[in-house]
Every structure is written in C-alpha cells, then in structure tokens.
C-alpha cells in the first residue's frame, strides 16, 4: 500500500517538476536568445503587481512570464481547420507529450542502486535502461509525422516528411554512439554506467568520439537548431505545427523541451559522470550525500541545457542534403569505426 503511494508521489513530483522546469526553460531560452542578440528580452511580467489584500510585488527578469504564457495558451481559441483528419490531428500532440514523459522513466536523476536512501529513478531496476529510452524516443516520430499528415496542409506535410527522414537517419548514429560506453561498463543500466564512471573516468574522457556523436545526434533527435528542418519557419511557415493553435501548439513545445531535458540528462549520465564530483563516491549512502548528488546532476544538466540553447543561437540551419550527408556519410561510418576501435582496445588491454 505504502509502496503504491510512494510510486504515485514520485511520479507526480518528477513529472510536475519537469513540466514546471519546461515552463521556465521557455523563459530562459528567450532570455538567452535576447542576450545573444544584445537585447533585454521579456522583462515585464511580474513587475508592479498588486495581489489581493493589497500585497505589492515587483519581480525582476520577467519571472512570471511562464504563467502569462500558460494562461494565454489556455484562454485562446482552439481553431481546428475543417479539412483535417480530426482523430489523428488531436492524437498527434498527445503522442508528443506521452512519448516525452515516458522516456524519462528509467533516467536516474540521482544515486541509484542497492543500499541508497531512495532510488532516484521512476522505474528502478529496468535493466534494458538505455534501449528503453531509445525505443520510446522513436515513438516521438509518430507525433511529428501524424501532425504533418493529419493537418492536410502542404507545409505541414513537407515538414512531416522531412522530419521522418531526419529522425530515422539520426537514430542510427545515436544508437551506435553509446555502444562504446555500454562496452566499457558492460551494462545497459544507466545507474551502472554512472557507477562505472565514478570508479574509472568520465565517459567524455573514455569515449570522446562517442560523446560528439551522441551530442550531434541528440540535437537532431530533439529537432533543435541547427537541425530544425521539420519546422524551419522561413521556408515551411511552421512545418508540422502550422495548423496547430493554442494549447495543442503548446503541447508540441512542452514535448520538445521535455526531450531537451531528457537528452541533457542522458548526456550527463553517459558522458559527464552523472552525480560524480570530487568528494562524492558510490559508497556514500547517507541522505545528505543523496541530496548533494541530485543537485550536482541537476547542475550539470542545467549547463547542458544552456549549451543546447547557446548552440541554437550560434549556428545557422543546415541545408537538407547536407543534413542527410552528415548522418549517413560522416556519423554512421565514424560510429562504426569508434565501436570497433573501442572493442579492439578493450581486447588489447585485457590481453
């Protein structure tokens, strides 16, 4: 009984925190964009507010912008065009959200394993770990493709087609890039891969090529610039979400930012040591060390998210043929070479 309440609480807290983080990530993104372009960005929402009972508050940096955005999403008219395939049209944003939420199930956001105060993972002990994340991540393709197809709009259709080809092309190097880490740790369990890095070295040192491949493919899988061809507002208006308005449009954004969080967590766990930090080790099982480990992980993830935003405002978009070339002619051969080299070196060291 208590176990069930514990599960429900954990799921509620994690998913709630994620959604709240996503709301603020949109503000952070706009702020990063603004500073990258030497502007100020949103700074009004939260200024000179009078709450009930005459309480006056004055928050800087547009801190209440996410609340204003959310209210706008809910209160706007939800236009459904006449010619759309209605069941699929409504299903598409739901798939985007469901796939993004489910992908986080096996991602450890703190220490996991026997003897810990608490398993900081929604579904601890699922030993297929990273394969599960990729399997669910592939489902997100359906959200984009169905949205493009169901909209009955040429821009959306093109966006959906492009995105299906892009996402499946980059899934191959994404899957191969982590094989080096799996070889080293001898497990697909993300918790065990973290523990291996604590005992040896960080993944970025052991697998620098794997890290680069994972980062590039991860960008493509989250549809972020420089790989945002499914949307590319200058040529396809809005790509697959041209015909979506109000909350349904917002749901695609929620899904996208949740993917950004998941990819950042995966990068940190696979290549940046997870909670590993000087002074912390896998043997410490106290409550204080657990909290510190969660905070260290969150700090590294914040840096990764900032890096993703930074790159978005630094690099221009790829052309479509360059995009496909990069996947099939550079990343896939490089991933194969990296895999064979890693396996060979392990064999050499073992003798």
């Amino acid at each position, binding site marked *: 009984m208590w176990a069930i309440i514990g*599960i429900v609480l954990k799921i509620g807290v994690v*998913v709630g925190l994620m959604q709240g983080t996503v709301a603020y990530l949109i503000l952070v993104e706009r702020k990063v964009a603004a500073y990258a372009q030497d502007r100020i960005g949103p700074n009004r929402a939260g200024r000179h507010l009078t709450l009930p009972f005459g309480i006056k508050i004055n928050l800087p940096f547009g801190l209440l912008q996410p609340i204003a955005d959310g209210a706008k999403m*809910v*209160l*706007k*008219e*939800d*236009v459904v*065009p*006449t*010619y759309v395939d209605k069941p699929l049209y*409504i299903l598409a*944003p*739901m798939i985007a*959200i*469901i796939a993004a*939420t*489910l992908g986080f*199930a096996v991602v450890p956001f703190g220490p996991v394993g026997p003897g810990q105060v608490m398993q900081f993972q*929604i*579904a*601890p*002990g*699922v*030993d297929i770990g990273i394969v*599960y994340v990729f399997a669910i991540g592939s489902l997100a393709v359906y959200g984009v493709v169905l949205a493009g197809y169901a909209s*009955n*709009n*040429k821009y959306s*259709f093109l966006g959906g087609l492009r995105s*299906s*080809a892009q996402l*499946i*092309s980059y*899934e*191959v190097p994404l*899957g*191969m890039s982590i*094989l080096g880490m*799996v*070889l080293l740790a*001898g*497990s*697909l369990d993300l918790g065990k891969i973290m523990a291996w890095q604590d005992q040896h070295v960080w993944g970025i040192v052991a697998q620098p090529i794997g890290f680069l491949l994972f980062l590039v493919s991860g960008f493509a899988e989250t549809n972020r610039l420089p790989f945002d061809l499914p949307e590319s507002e200058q040529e396809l*208006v809005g790509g697959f979400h*041209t*015909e979506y308005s*109000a*909350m349904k449009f917002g*749901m695609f954004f929620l899904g996208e930012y949740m993917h950004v969080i998941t990819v950042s967590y995966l990068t940190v766990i696979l290549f940046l040591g997870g909670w590993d930090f000087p002074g912390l080790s896998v043997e410490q099982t106290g409550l204080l060390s657990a909290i510190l480990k969660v905070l260290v992980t969150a700090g590294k993830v914040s840096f990764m998210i900032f890096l993703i935003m930074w790159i978005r405002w630094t690099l221009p978009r790829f052309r*479509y*043929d360059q995009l*496909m*070339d990069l996947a099939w*002619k550079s990343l896939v*051969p490089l991933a*194969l070479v990296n895999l*064979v080299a890693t*396996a*060979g070196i392990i064999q050499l060291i073992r003798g």
Partner: protein
Amino acid sequence: MVLFNYVFIGALLLGAIGFAAAPLVVVAIVAPRRRSREKQDIYECGLRTTGETWIRFRIQYYIFAMLFVVFDIETVFLYPWAVSYVGLGAFALFEMVVFLVLLFAGLLYAWAKGVLRWV
C-alpha cells in the same frame, strides 16, 4: 521481480496520458469558440489552396527508410553483444568485425550507387 519493475512504467504511462489529456479537456471547457469559414480554412499564405495534399511523394524517402531498418536492426544486434563482451573471448571481436564489415560494405555500395545523394 524483473517484471514487477515494469509496473512503474505502466503507472507512468497512465500519468502521461492524464497529463496529455488534461490540457485538451481544460481548453475545451475554458477557451472561447467563435467559428468562421475563413478562420477554419487551410493556411496557405492567404491564397486559396489548389490541388490535393495527400499525394504520392518521392521514392527517396522510402530508400532512406529501408537503409534505416537495416542499420537499426544491426544496432539492436550489437547491444546484447556489447553487454556480454567482457565475458567473451577475442573470437567475439572477430565475429563482430566480420558482421560490421559486411554491413559497411553494404553502406559503401549504396553510397557508390548514389542512393545517399539527396537530389
């Protein structure tokens, strides 16, 4: 015990469906609804749309889909090999190199045939 772990994922799936459906329900109740023919037309930069949208599209998308299937299945084969590699001998490395060389030859063939060139 192993199967029990998947119960958490099932619970999360229920929660995710709830999180996905709740905004749509709230919007259906709260949001205003003023319909008009122009508003519900297909977006086409203000022009009337001509021709069908759901047409046959170019073959190249299918070719990339087939390439994807080949290489994704290959990756799935590599996962169990990578997990148990520590316990296997040098022969496992040799076997996998043969497998990868065969597939890489396939990729090179597709490359030489011009399949990978996006036109």
